[in-house]
């Protein structure tokens, strides 16, 4: 099976986010970068699919040329076989639609039958790209998947809906699977695989190599600002019974959440 996985390099979930002085975006200089949280599930599921059904996994990343190291440590070292890093200026400045066009073209060229992506990127959290890839390729897409299996050319995916409701979706390949928290337990790279990952094939290409001329963002972002500081927490005094009563009252009357 020819399996693809899209992995975006984003700041680590514990990173202290700094905003550029002109407010034009987030300053990731000196920040610890990793394959995004949800994309980790996608990488893991792609590898498990390969282990169960044979074949090979290709990782696709739109990002900076310096992302190579992180694609190696965060995907190739775990068992992904090769990687495509789309990293020219056009790619770096592509918006969600442009990114999806680049990824869809690269996926098509690689001949994948199934593609895993994270539910959202850890940084901008747009949740747009996977649906767009599916649309551009004319494939099915299943979002928020927490359980997944393939049999022959058909698949069954469980979606986590609100309020604990599960929806089971089945269909046939090709498909884009968008991975949700809890789908699997991502593995750690084994030390020998870290060494081997340095030698695995990784091709760096640009938008032009995929025959795409215009992938520039159609919207722009500005005025980034930190969230307002959190108000100090409040301690409710008293014994457990009366404190609980007071807590419920505050949640209902002040916070109006229940």
């Amino acid at each position: 099976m020819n399996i693809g996985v899209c992995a975006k390099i984003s700041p680590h979930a514990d990173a202290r986010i700094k905003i550029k002085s002109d407010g034009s975006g987030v300053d990731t200089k000196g920040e610890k970068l990793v394959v995004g949280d949800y994309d980790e599930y996608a990488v893991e599921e792609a590898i498990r699919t390969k282990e169960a059904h044979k074949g090979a996994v290709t990782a696709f990343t739109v990002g900076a040329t310096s992302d190579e190291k992180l694609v190696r440590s965060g995907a190739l070292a775990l068992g992904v076989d090769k990687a495509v890093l789309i990293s020219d200026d056009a790619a770096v400045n592509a918006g969600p639609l442009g990114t999806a066009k680049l990824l869809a073209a690269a996926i098509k060229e690689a001949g994948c039958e199934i593609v895993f992506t994270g539910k959202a990127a850890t940084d901008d959290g747009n949740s747009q790209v996977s649906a767009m890839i599916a649309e551009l390729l004319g494939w099915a897409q299943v979002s928020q998947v927490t359980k997944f299996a393939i049999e022959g050319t058909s698949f069954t995916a469980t979606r986590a809906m609100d309020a604990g409701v599960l929806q089971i979706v089945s269909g046939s390949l090709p498909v884009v699977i968008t991975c949700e928290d809890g789908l699997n337990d991502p593995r750690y790279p084994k030390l020998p695989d870290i060494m081997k990952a340095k030698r695995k094939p990784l091709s760096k290409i640009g938008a032009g190599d995929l025959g795409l001329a215009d992938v520039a963002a159609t919207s722009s972002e500005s005025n980034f600002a930190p969230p307002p500081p959190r108000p100090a927490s409040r301690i409710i005094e008293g014994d457990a019974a009366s404190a609980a009563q007071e807590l419920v009252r505050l949640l209902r009357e002040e916070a109006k959440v229940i």
Partner: protein
Amino acid sequence: MFQLTEDQVDLAEAVAGFCRETLAPTVEADDEHQVFRPELFRAMGEQGFLGVPTPEEHGGLGLGYFEYCVVLEEIAKVSASYAVTVAVNGLPQVILGQFGTEEQKAEWLPKLAAGEALGAFALSEPESGSDAGAMKTTAERRGDTYVLNGTKFWITHGGVADIYICMARTGGPGPKGVSAFILPGDATGLSFGKKENKMGLRASPTVELVLDDVVIPAANRIGEEGFGFNVAMAALDSGRITIAASGVGLSQAALDYAGVYATERKQFKKPIIDFQGVSFMLADMACKIESSRLLVHKAAWLRDQGLPYANIAAMAKCVATDTAMSVTTDAVQVLGGYGYTKEHPVERYMRDAKVMQIVEGTNQIQRLVIGRHLKRGWMR
């Protein structure tokens, strides 16, 4: 050598991630109840932590002692017991790699490096610790076999190991009468005495071996008869680097814990780190750790270059483990009364640090080794 390469940083991060998620949750309870988990050892084998300097053709990673130290430091930040497990399991690998026959290497190295076999090293006895050359355990040649009799004390992994490198006397008194043997864990006549109830390193089993007419094939001897003490000392020269690296990890964990605590704990309306008395203590801890790490890295580097390293390894062991003792003690001090309780890990760090000044040659013995090296240089 003054900065980790990208590859070494990747190794360190992979080890740290595994230890944080898989090892850390077991540490507190296993310290309390003295539990060793063979499944954690095997998992470390699967991750590739166990044969870092063992050649690739024998199932290891084929890297240097430098990388080995980087890995051990990360493990020791989470658990000194498992750092010692990795270090002790490394001793049979370094011994067989250096002195073993091709058959001995082929049989044991891949298993030890993969975590399919747990290794141990049996030198000490009830009456011979620092003076290991005075051991009493005997190995008597009978045809194609040796028959071993005696008692080994303080054996890490005793009772759970699959292979012990056991030193026993085949000749006259003193170090020259000692030979080294591969003693399988399931050998007939091998039994286990008491498991020590220890102050620290409590997830690492320390057990007495009783050898009562244990028969092993003569092919299990490592090197010539009478060569066993050299085997043991060569292993300890390398082993000292690994204990030193573990000491650095333990110290770093203690400093990091104390440092974060000191920025959060307030007295007299200020974080205590803003009192010079506390920040100078943290600064001294950091200075000692940094210099220990440099010494450990130098010892490992010398070994990797094929240069003489025994003297620097002894210095590294001494400095890094004396540092671990002082830094962990100060970490408890930074936490005050809270540091003295099991609510915080620093009291465990302090208990674990103590043993590092004792194993693989006490720090007095390290100084004796260093002094002898110095004297040799000065003698005309």
